[in-house]
């Protein structure tokens, strides 16, 4: 275990004091002179043809300075696929999502936007826009959407597949299959087989800060956008494509961000703000309401899942099979590919067949939500694995350990897994105090679940420059959602051997720093941190050159001892501290920089294992969580408090997903619970303290062994709670959320079956 000086400690984050005093500037906190307020007209219908849009009454209102519709988007020439935010989506689909063209495809689909001198005037102007709709029957269920008789959302959509092209028009946008060996042979060999179907409901990332964007343009056509986003470069790409603005004429400045979890990798308001500022000539600010955030931005998929697992009497899994259909929302691009990828990854098998279907429905186009696709499928897979273990009479962790994948075993796509920590995690769980603590009392049970997430690497850019007193200013382009600025400073301080508070980290906008992929996919400490380390090493090399200049020797005769200074291998007397070299920077050639860009590739994968103790009220169906432990392989914890925080936060979102949260639609496709009362995210009363156990199996390719931590923690909770409820009251719930109503109905059904 490497001993670090700064890494592994818990310094106070540099942006902290502004965040506890209300000074920090978030998306809605931007105010510019002469600013107009924008509002958006959203479709009230889930599925409708747009026959006409009449904005004349709105435009005629005093104080209304601009109105835009889909007709204001520059004409499309090609149907290029652009990798934007983190979901692949046809450029045409994306423009149609930003502002509807000829069809409204979900309640909350943006139809028009206005800019006015006050927010209240803007709201009134939106009401004055007359839209003629031809209402069409909505498709609201993924199973129905796949049937041949279901209405089609897109007349030109055919199923993409690596199989034979059928050319058949369908709501199934794509079909994929992962396979090896023979599942038929594997099931034939099994002594115990479990086959189940599951249904999960659409859920929202639930960030407390709604979307916001402010745009202004100079008289010579240079745009600036301030927005709350997980990726300023992704916003720049989107606005450039949608509004027809060259990248060099468009600056995107990220404000502080009040939560994203994947939902702010796609921008909805920035293109509208830009169109409105272009038309009105004045800065325009748009801020979503909570209801608009629920209706108009991307939640994650509900799904229909069928899984089958078989094992021999000795506990060896012989075959794993499954089929899953994920709701993409109005345009193709659900996370079903990742679902197929993670479904059974923790378990070794020679016989595997998993089918995934990406299906469009009349709901908002889904966006990433923390390990997109994984929570739904892990709920199903971990329930099935648990049932298998139970039928075999094996301890659920021991069963998982017996079948756990190790380095070199195959993932779903038949690629070899690298160094991973699942075995260590399962052992840590089995040896944990929680797992051996007695749990007595009526209707109480303990459940476990595992989870996997691949994580991401991708591109980051960093530059840093020394001040004359030896302190250093670092600029990087990764939006800081939860304290990553501090981790970057810690890595630089560690590399340079200087105190943490001598490192300033600024989050640069798109004109200050090179491209960075968005903050998400558990990539920031991994990839941007790696770039910071490389930039610090580059800075040291440059400083060594300055020392060589001052000592009139060769650079390769100069060494840097972090914490001590620069020494000469040719002359033991020579020593220059960092501060001394920096004081003389101007004389030796000017300020000293360190620069690095990185494409960190695919990222280092992570596993998680959770243990949950619950008590079920058999009368009301309420599930109380008595105790919760989240174990996770974190590689190396740079700032342990923030790693713990990620695990606790992800676990809590998973708990909400498991027990309380879900979109409720009526038959017309109206979202009934677009508010925080009826869309029920966990409150402080709904969760206990979340104990975390960080197992460190360093990622071998990363200079500090970092693994992304933000996502793996949301994968196991639903499965752990489902298994705990079963052990508490003897019912296996097949649907999410496992509300008190669901629990009661299952208990009643169980009693009636007796």
């Amino acid at each position, binding site marked *: 275990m490497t001993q670090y000086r700064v890494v592994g400690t818990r310094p106070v984050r540099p942006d902290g004091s502004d965040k506890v005093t209300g000074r920090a500037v978030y998306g809605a906190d931007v105010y510019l002179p002469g600013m107009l307020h924008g509002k958006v007209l959203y479709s009230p219908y889930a599925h409708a043809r747009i026959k006409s849009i009449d904005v004349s009454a709105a435009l005629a209102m005093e104080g209304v300075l601009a109105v835009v519709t889909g007709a204001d988007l520059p004409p499309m020439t090609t149907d290029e696929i652009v990798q934007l935010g983190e979901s692949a989506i046809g450029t045409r689909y994306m423009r149609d999502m930003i502002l509807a063209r000829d069809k409204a495809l979900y309640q909350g689909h943006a139809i028009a936007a206005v800019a006015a001198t006050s927010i209240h005037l803007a709201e009134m102007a939106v009401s004055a826009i007359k839209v003629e709709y031809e209402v069409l029957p909505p498709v609201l269920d993924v199973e129905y959407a796949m049937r041949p008789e279901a209405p089609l959302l897109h007349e030109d959509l055919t199923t*993409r597949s690596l199989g034979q092209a059928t050319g058949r028009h369908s709501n199934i946008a794509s*079909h994929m299959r992962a396979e090896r060996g023979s599942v038929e042979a594997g099931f034939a060999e099994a002594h115990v087989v479990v086959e189940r179907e599951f249904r999960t409901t659409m859920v929202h990332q639930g960030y407390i800060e709604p979307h916001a964007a402010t745009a202004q343009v100079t008289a010579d056509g240079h745009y600036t956008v301030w927005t709350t986003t997980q990726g300023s470069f992704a916003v720049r790409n989107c606005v450039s494509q949608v509004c027809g603005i060259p990248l060099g004429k468009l600056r995107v400045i990220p404000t502080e961000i009040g939560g994203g979890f994947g939902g702010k990798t796609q921008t909805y308001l920035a293109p509208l703000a830009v169109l409105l500022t272009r038309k009105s000539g004045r800065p325009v600010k748009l801020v979503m309401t909570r209801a608009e955030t629920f209706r108009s931005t991307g939640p994650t998929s509900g799904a229909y899942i069928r899984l089958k697992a078989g094992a021999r009497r000795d506990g060896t899994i012989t075959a794993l099979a499954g089929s899953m259909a994920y709701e993409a929302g109005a345009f193709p691009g659900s996370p079903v590919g990742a679902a197929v990828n993670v479904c059974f990854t923790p378990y070794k098998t020679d016989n595997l067949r998993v089918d995934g279907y990406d299906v469009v429905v009349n709901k908002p186009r889904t966006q990433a939500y923390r390990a997109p696709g994984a929570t739904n499928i892990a709920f199903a897979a971990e329930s099935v694995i648990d049932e298998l273990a139970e039928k075999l009479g094996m301890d659920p962790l021991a069963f998982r350990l017996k079948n756990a994948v190790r380095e070199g075993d195959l993932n779903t796509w038949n690629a070899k897994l690298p160094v991973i920590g699942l075995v260590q995690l399962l052992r840590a769980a089995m040896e944990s105090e929680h797992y051996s603590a007695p749990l007595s009392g009526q209707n109480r049970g303990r459940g476990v679940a595992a989870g996997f997430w691949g994580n991401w690497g991708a591109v980051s850019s960093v530059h840093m420059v020394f001040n004359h007193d030896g302190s250093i200013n670092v600029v990087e382009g990764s939006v800081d959602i939860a304290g990553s600025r501090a981790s970057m400073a810690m890595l630089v301080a560690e590399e340079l051997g200087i105190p943490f508070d001598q490192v300033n980290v600024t989050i640069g906008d798109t004109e200050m720093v090179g491209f960075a992929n968005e903050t998400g996919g558990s990539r920031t400490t991994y990839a941007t941190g790696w770039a910071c380390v490389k930039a610090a090493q580059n800075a040291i090399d440059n400083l060594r050159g300055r020392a060589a200049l001052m000592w009139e020797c060769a650079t390769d005769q100069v060494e840097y001892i972090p914490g001590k200074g620069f020494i000469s291998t040719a002359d033991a007397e020579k020593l220059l501290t960092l501060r001394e070299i920096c004081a003389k920077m101007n004389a030796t050639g000017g300020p000293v920089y360190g620069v690095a860009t990185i494409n960190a590739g695919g990222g280092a994968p992570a596993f998680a294992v959770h243990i949950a103790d619950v008590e079920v009220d058999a009368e009301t169906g309420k599930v109380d969580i008595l105790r919760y432990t989240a174990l996770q392989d974190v590689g190396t914890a740079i700032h342990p408090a923030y790693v713990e925080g990620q695990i606790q936060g992800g676990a809590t979102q998973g708990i909400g997903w498991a027990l309380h949260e879900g979109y409720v639609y009526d038959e017309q496709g109206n979202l009934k619970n677009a508010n925080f009362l009826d869309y029920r995210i966990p409150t402080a009363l709904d969760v206990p303290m979340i104990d975390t156990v960080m197992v460190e199996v360093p990622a071998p390719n990363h200079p500090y062994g970092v693994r992304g931590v933000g996502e793996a923690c949301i994968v196991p909770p639903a499965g752990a709670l489902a298994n705990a409820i079963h052990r508490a009251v003897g019912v296996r719930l097949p649907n999410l959320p496992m509300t008190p109503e669901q629990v009661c109905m299952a208990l009643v059904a169980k009693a009636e079956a007796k």
Partner: protein
Amino acid sequence: MARVWIPSLMRDLTAGDASVVVAGATVREVIANLERAYPGCQARLLQPDGEVQAHIAVAVDGEVPVMGLQAKVGQNSEVHFIPPMSGG
């Protein structure tokens, strides 16, 4: 020579083989050679304009290279065609 893992739905083109060995210094060359040995593969993997289909990502030795079809493929590389995946 690279080992190319054939997605299950494409194994009708390779007489059921789950992996085949194919020459090529870049991903593009590998796909072209795959097409020569097993006609029909290219149409399933690439769009008419020569770019990779939207619902696929190409992985070389476990990673999706940013160079895409231009990415180098080594002597003992493994190539997989997988769905695109994202984080949140």
